[in-house]
C-alpha cells in the first residue's frame, strides 16, 4: 500500500507541530517532563505503608516458622523465641533494603551507597 503524498505531508506536519509544542512546554522530544518532580512526593504515603508492612510481615513469618518448628519437634517455646528474633532481624533487613532502593542512584551519598551495596 502506498500512502498518498498529502497523507505523508500531513503526518510530517503533525510531528513538527508536536515537537514545537514539546519545546514550548519545556519537555524533551519524547514528550517527557524535564524534571519529574511529582514522582517522589506522590509515592510518600506508599513508601510509608510499604516500610511498615515489610517490617511487620517479616516478624509474623518468623514467628510462624518458629511456631511450626515447635509444633513439629516439640521444642516449645524455644523455636518460637529464636525465630521471632530472626524474623525481627529479617524485618530490619527488609526495611533497610526497601529504603535503600528508594534512594535514587543518581543522588551521591558515598556512605549511604556503600551500605546499600553491602546489603545487596
Amino acid at each position, binding site marked *: 500500500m502506498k500512502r498518498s503524498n498529502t497523507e505523508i505531508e500531513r503526518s510530517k506536519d503533525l510531528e513538527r507541530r508536536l515537537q514545537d509544542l514539546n519545546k514550548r512546554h519545556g519537555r524533551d522530544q519524547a514528550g517527557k517532563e524535564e524534571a519529574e518532580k511529582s514522582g517522589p512526593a506522590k509515592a510518600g504515603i*506508599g513508601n510509608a*505503608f*510499604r516500610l511498615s508492612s515489610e517490617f511487620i510481615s517479616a516478624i509474623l*513469618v518468623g514467628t510462624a516458622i518458629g511456631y511450626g518448628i515447635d509444633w513439629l519437634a516439640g521444642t516449645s517455646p524455644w523455636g518460637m523465641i529464636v525465630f521471632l528474633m*530472626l*524474623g525481627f532481624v529479617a*524485618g530490619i533487613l527488609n526495611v533497610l533494603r526497601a529504603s535503600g532502593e528508594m534512594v535514587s542512584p543518581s543522588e551521591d551519598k558515598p556512605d549511604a551507597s556503600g551500605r546499600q551495596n553491602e546489603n545487596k
Partner: protein
Amino acid sequence: MANDPISQFNLTELIPLQIGSTDLSFTNSSLFMVATVVLTSGFFIWATGRRGMVPSRAQSFAEMTYEFVAGMLRDSAGSEGMRFFPLVFSLFLFILVANMFGMFPYFFTVTSHVIITVALALLVFATVLIVGLMRHGLGFFKLFVPSGVPMAILPLVVAIEIISFLARPVSHSIRLFANMLAGHITLKVFAGFVVSLSSLGAVGIVGAILPMIMTVGLTALEFLVAFLQAYVFTMLTCMYLNDALHPGAH
C-alpha cells in the same frame, strides 16, 4: 445499608451454589470482580479496535496506560522482563479498577478482602519461584546466600534471608488489603459523625461541618491511595520478577 462502618465489607450470596462440600456461591464480591474484568477488557478492546495514526481520546488513554506499566516493568526487570508484561498489566488494571469501583458509594471493594490480595500475591510469588527455578535451576537459591559472608555466620544469614523472602507475599498482600480496609472504614466513620451530629439540632449541624470537611478531604485521599496501592503492588511485582530473572544480581 446499615450505618456501622464494617457492614460494607459483608459478603452476600447472590446466586447460591454448592458443589460437593465446597461453597461456590456467586457473591457480591464475585459480581464486582466480573464487573472489573468486563470493564477493563471491554474498554481496551473498544479503545484499540479502531486504531488510528492520530489516536482518539480512548486510544490515547489505552496507550498511556500501556506505556506507564511497560516503563515500570522495563525499569526494574529490564527488557527481558517484558515477557511478564501480560501478567503485570493485568494485575495493575485489576487492582486499579477494583479499587476505583470501591470508591463508588454502595459499591463493594474487592481488594478490601485479604483472601483476594493473598491470592494475587501468591500468584506473583509462585511465578517468581517457578520461573526462577526453571531458568536457573538450583542457582536460584543463590538468592539466599549473599556473597562475601564469613562461613561462621552463613547459616544465620541464610535463615534471615529465607524469612525475608517468605515475608514477601505476606507484606505484598497485607499492604493492599489493609490500606483499602482502613481507608474505607475511616471514610465511613467520619461520614457517620456527620449524620449523628446533625441529628442533635442546630448546634450539631454547625458541629457537623468539621467531619464533613474531613470526609471530603479523605475521599480525595482515598482516590490517591487507590491508585497508589495499585502502583505499589505492580512496582513490587516487577522487582520480585527481577529477582527471578537475575537472582545473583541481588
